[in-house]
């Protein structure tokens, strides 16, 4: 199968392009590395620098003056920072509480591929895959004071006055978190569906023969087998709460006031709506540190999975 070329050329070429084992040389990864360096790496450096300076639209191109830790002390001393941190945690926990049990229940219920179950599963994954803005519009209409949910609740005679889901107290945060959990649930179902295939079927059948109930089979056989998946998904969803804000942005804009503002949205709002680039950068650095806490265990469990 060796290609016939001039004997003087082949060895030289092979030496230059190819290591003896045929493994790819570093030029395969060079374009991606350079690209990520310029588009993500260098901007990260800029982000840290901006968080120690005062950058406003006027000083955006020149860079602003160095102010040390002023931006950080201002952020941590601002009266709303604690509330926003709590809201971010609540958001993340609600996403977990909806997406994990819901996704597992859906994956188990839809495990058998009948037509009806297949359609249900397909519909769920489709809604997950739709552009976030489309889902956010639909849910904003559902939760809107004159929207679908209030119309249905009134039609059923459950309420007389509309509920202000997107305006009243904790409801905006809860509504937005619910939607984030709703969109995360099909993703969890997809991942759980794959994990459920690795649950030892013989053990389940043996336990059933021995008279173990459904709950006992679940907690003693199924759950231990899928617990690594539960762990990974928990990290993913919690980190998602700290880094993403598109549903909140479209449904409530973080409001009313800051009633549904979470940390990632705060950084965005400061930078692009209040034109306080340094304030936004400071919040972003704080969220990066929070995300780092999640990234390490996630990497370790990914490594463990690929060893199997």
């Amino acid at each position, binding site marked *: 199968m060796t290609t016939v070329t001039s004997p003087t050329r082949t060895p030289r070429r*092979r030496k230059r392009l*190819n*290591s003896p*084992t*045929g493994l*790819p040389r570093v030029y*395969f*990864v060079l374009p*991606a590395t350079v690209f*990520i360096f310029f*588009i*993500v790496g260098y*901007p990260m450096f800029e*982000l840290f620098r*901006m968080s120690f300076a005062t950058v406003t639209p006027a000083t*955006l191109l020149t860079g602003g003056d160095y102010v040390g830790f002023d931006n950080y002390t201002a952020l941590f001393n601002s009266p709303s920072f604690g509330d926003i941190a709590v809201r971010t945690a609540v958001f993340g926990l609600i996403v977990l509480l909806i997406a994990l049990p819901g996704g597992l229940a859906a994956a188990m219920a*839809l495990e*058998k591929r009948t037509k009806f*179950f297949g359609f*249900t599963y397909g*519909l769920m*994954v489709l809604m997950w*895959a739709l552009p*976030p*803005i*489309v889902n956010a*519009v*639909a849910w904003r*209409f559902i939760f809107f004071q004159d929207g*679908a949910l209030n*119309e249905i609740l009134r*039609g059923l005679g459950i309420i007389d006055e509309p509920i202000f889901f997107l305006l009243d107290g904790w409801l905006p945060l809860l509504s937005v978190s619910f939607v984030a959990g709703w969109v995360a649930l099909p993703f969890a179902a*997809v*991942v759980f569906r*794959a*994990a459920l295939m690795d649950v030892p079927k013989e053990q389940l059948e043996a336990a059933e023969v021995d008279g173990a109930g459904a709950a006992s089979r679940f907690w003693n056989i199924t759950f231990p087998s899928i617990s690594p998946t539960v762990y990974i998904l928990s990290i*993913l969803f919690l980190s998602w709460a*700290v*880094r*993403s*804000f*598109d549903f909140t942005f479209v449904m409530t*804009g973080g409001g009313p006031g800051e009633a549904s503002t979470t940390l*990632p*949205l705060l*950084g*965005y709002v400061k*930078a*692009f709506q209040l034109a306080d680039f340094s304030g*936004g*950068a400071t919040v*972003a650095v704080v*969220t*990066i540190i929070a*995300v*780092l806490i999640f990234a390490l265990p996630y*990497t370790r469990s*990914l*490594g463990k*999975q690929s060893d199997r």
Partner: protein
Amino acid sequence: MKKRARRFRPSVPAYIVASLMIVLYGSPLAFLLLGSGQTAGTLPSVSPASITDYSLSNYVDYFVVYGNGPSLWNSAVIALGTTTLIMAFGLPAAYWLSRLSPFASSALLIIVVFLQMLPQAAVIIPLYRVLALWGLIGNRWGVIIALAGSLLPWALLLLGPYFRSIPRELNEASAVDGAGGLRQFWSIILPLTRNGAITIGLLTFMVTWGDFVYSINLLTKSALYPASASIVGYVNAYSVDWPGLMAASVITAIPILIVFLIFQRRLTEGLSAGSVKG
């Protein structure tokens, strides 16, 4: 598996969960379709009686009155441009990463995971300044390279399993046969990972089609906005034209719907393989 499937009769709880899911995931879509056919500027009703005066005029107005056709073109340019860039950089890089020693690859994995988890705002705030320095604000290329840069680590993670499943012996064998690095990649490795490449390419396309955060901040003229970004303007308008907004949402969703219906199985498999199995 087959044996069980034959014996299996779906249980009552399974039907309850499935029905609940149908309601939870069907109703938002149903409301969008229902509302988008009602008179522009009115408040849509979801009662069955509202179906009587259903019309497609909001869909027509989207193109004719509001002239939103170009925004779909903008979406296509941004999504296809980003996907092409990510594949061009990502495929060789993912291949290279898959051939590293376990120690080196787990060290690099930490960096990739960290980059993939970076908060949106953390990327876009400094990038705004950097792109401004480079004169790329208000330019579709700015959005494309910003999206490609921030999604490339994610694509690398998802592509990893496909490349790792190819045994290293194949490299040795083809090196003995005299295939150079690039040729090996192009005519041996890539054909074997074609499925994975297509799956991750499709996922990238779908994610970038839906982006609005990068677009509304890095583009200055709304004429350049992709479809999803132009909806944001609608939503935050002082008085919302719900039926028009819903028609715009459905139109924005249609390309994703088509891609999804064609490639459904492939997408769900790629998703579960990449996210957890590493």
